[in-house]
C-alpha cells in the first residue's frame, strides 16, 4: 500500500518536472570548438578533420556517410579542470601520496583524474562583476576581490549557499573572436586570491568564469595562487571559458546548473558544454 502511494507521488512529481523541463529556458554556456579557436598558449590547438566525406565518386549508392576525428587539449575551450590538475607540495586534493610517482604520459593521473568527477547537477549562481562596476567588460588589470563578490551578492539579491556552483562573470569573453587577446592575453581580468578564500568560506562545490586563466593575467602570467587555493587545498574544481553573456543579459542569477565532463581516464580536464536551466 505504502509503496503504491510513493509510486503515485513519484509519478506526479515526475509529471510536473517534465512539464517544467518543457517550459524552462536552457542557457548554453559552452563555446564552439573549431580549428583556429582561441586557446591558452601552453595547451595544444584544437585540430579537426573529416576521416571520411560523403562524396564517394565511384559510388552508385543513394546513401552516404561521413565521419570525423579531432585532437583537443583537456584545457582547450570550455572545460573543467580535474582535481589532479594542480598539486601543492606534491599532493593533489584528497590523496595523501605524492603525485609525482602516480602519473605517466600514456596513462595520465592515477589519482585525481577527471573520470572521478561526477555528473554535476546543482544549484548555480551567477555573480556579474562588470554589472556591479557599471561596465560591459572588466578592465584588463582588474582583480576580483572578496569584497566585489560580497557586493555583487547584495546588489543582485541572490544568496550563495553551500554546495552551489558559483559562476563569476568578467565579460572578457567579448574578445573571443580576437584570438590571443582572449586565449593568451598579456593582460586580462580575473579572480583574485581573496575571492577564492571567500568561495571556500561559502563552501561552494564548483566555480567557473569566462576567461581562459581564471586568475588575473599580468605580463602574460597568471597572478596569485587561485588554482592551489581552490583545487589543491579545498577540492573546488574550476571551469574556464564559460559563455555567461546570455545569463547576464537576462539577469538569470539563480539556476539549475548541469555539466557532464567526459570520463577520460587519468585526464587533467575535460571539455564540457554546460547549461543553466531557469524556470
Amino acid at each position, binding site marked *: 500500500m505504502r509503496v503504491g502511494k510513493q509510486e503515485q507521488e513519484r509519478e506526479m*512529481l*515526475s509529471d510536473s518536472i517534465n512539464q*517544467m*523541463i*518543457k517550459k524552462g529556458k*536552457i542557457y*548554453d554556456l559552452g563555446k*564552439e570548438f*573549431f*580549428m583556429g579557436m582561441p586557446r591558452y598558449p601552453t*595547451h*595544444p590547438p584544437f585540430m*579537426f578533420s*573529416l576521416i571520411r*566525406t*560523403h562524396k564517394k565518386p565511384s559510388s552508385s549508392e543513394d*546513401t*552516404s556517410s*561521413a*565521419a*570525423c*576525428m*579531432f*585532437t*583537443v*587539449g*583537456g*584545457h582547450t575551450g570550455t572545460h573543467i579542470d580535474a582535481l589532479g*590538475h594542480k*598539486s601543492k*607540495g*606534491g599532493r593533489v586534493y584528497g590523496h595523501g601520496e605524492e603525485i*609525482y610517482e602516480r*602519473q*605517466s604520459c*600514456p*596513462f*595520465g*593521473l592515477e589519482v585525481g583524474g577527471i*573520470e572521478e568527477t561526477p*555528473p554535476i*547537477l546543482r*544549484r548555480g549562481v551567477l555573480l556579474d562583476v562588470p554589472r556591479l562596476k557599471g561596465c560591459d567588460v572588466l578592465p584588463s588589470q582588474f582583480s576580483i576581490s572578496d569584497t566585489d563578490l560580497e557586493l555583487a551578492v547584495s546588489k543582485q539579491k541572490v544568496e550563495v549557499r553551500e554546495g552551489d556552483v558559483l559562476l563569476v562573470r568578467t565579460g572578457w569573453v567579448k574578445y573571443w573572436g580576437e584570438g590571443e587577446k582572449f586565449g593568451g592575453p598579456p593582460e586580462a581580468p580575473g579572480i583574485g586570491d581573496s575571492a577564492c578564500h571567500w568561495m571556500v568560506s561559502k563552501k561552494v562545490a564548483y566555480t567557473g568564469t569566462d576567461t581562459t586563466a581564471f586568475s588575473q593575467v599580468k605580463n602574460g602570467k597568471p597572478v596569485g*595562487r587561485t588554482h592551489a587555493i581552490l583545487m589543491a587545498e579545498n577540492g573546488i574544481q574550476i571551469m574556464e571559458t564559460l559563455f555567461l553573456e546570455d545569463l547576464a543579459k537576462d539577469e538569470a542569477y539563480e539556476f*539549475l546548473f*548541469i*555539466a*557532464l*565532463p*567526459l*570520463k*577520460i581516464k*587519468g*585526464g*587533467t580536464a575535460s*571539455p*564540457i*558544454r554546460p*547549461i543553466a*536551466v531557469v524556470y
Partner: protein
Amino acid sequence: MNTSELLRYMTKAVTYDLGKEFFPGMTHNRAHPTFVFSLISSHAESAREGSQSSASCFFILGGHTGTHIDALGHYAEHGHVFGHPDQSIFDLEGYTTGLSVGGVERTPPVLRRGVLLDIPRLHGCEVLPANHEIGPKDLEGALHRQKVTMNSGDVLLIRTGWMRHWEDQIKYCGIMPGVSHEGAQWIANRKVAFTGTDTNSFEKIDRTKKQVHVVLLARYGIQIMECLYLEDLARDARWEFIFVALPLRIRGATGSPIRPIAISL
C-alpha cells in the same frame, strides 16, 4: 513550480551515469580512430618551479568513439542531410571544415523525458543473441510489459544487454543485435526526439537491406546515441526518467562524445 523547487527536486534525485570511460586501448569500431591520450606536461616536470605543480593533457578521438551521439549530417540520402532538402551535402563538406550543414554543433542540449525499453528482459534473458533483430513486436511488447508510456518528444533508449561484451572488442564490435528497418520505422512513427542503445551500431541490416541510420538520421531527423551504459537503469527497473546529454559544440563534426545521465526521482 519555480526555479527553487526545480532545484530542490533535481538535486535530490538519483543520477545514473550512462557514459563509458575513455582510455587508450578502449573498445572502438575500426571504422573510427582509436582513442589516443598523453599528458603534455607532468607534475614532476613542473614541480621544479616551486611547491605547486600542475599537469595537463591532450587526446585524440573520433566523433563516433565511445559513448557518443551522431550528428544529423552523419548520414545523407540522395546527397541530402535532414532539414536541407535543397542543398547537396557533397558541396557543403570539407576535410578541415567538416559539414556546413548538419554538424553536431547544431544539436541543442538534450534535456527531455527518457524511456528505457529492456528487450532482453522481455525475452527472459540477460543479453540478446547476436542475430536478434529488434522489430515493432519487441518494442510494443516491452512497452506493454514494462507498463510505460511513450510521448512524442521523448528520448527512447533501447537495451540489448550487449554492453556486457564491452571488454571484448572483437565480440562487441562484431555481429551484434540491433534495431531492424521496421523497428526504426516504428520509432519514427512514435515521434521520439532522440534514440540510443548500448551497442556500437544501433542497427541490424534486415532483409530490406535498408540502413536504419539513413531512416532515422536523414529521413526523420532523429539523432542516434551509441555505446550507452544502460545496465544500472535496467537493474533498478527505472523505465522513465529525465534524460540529459550535452554534446560538445564541435563545428562541422559528424558526432560528439557524450556522458549522458538519467535522473530518476
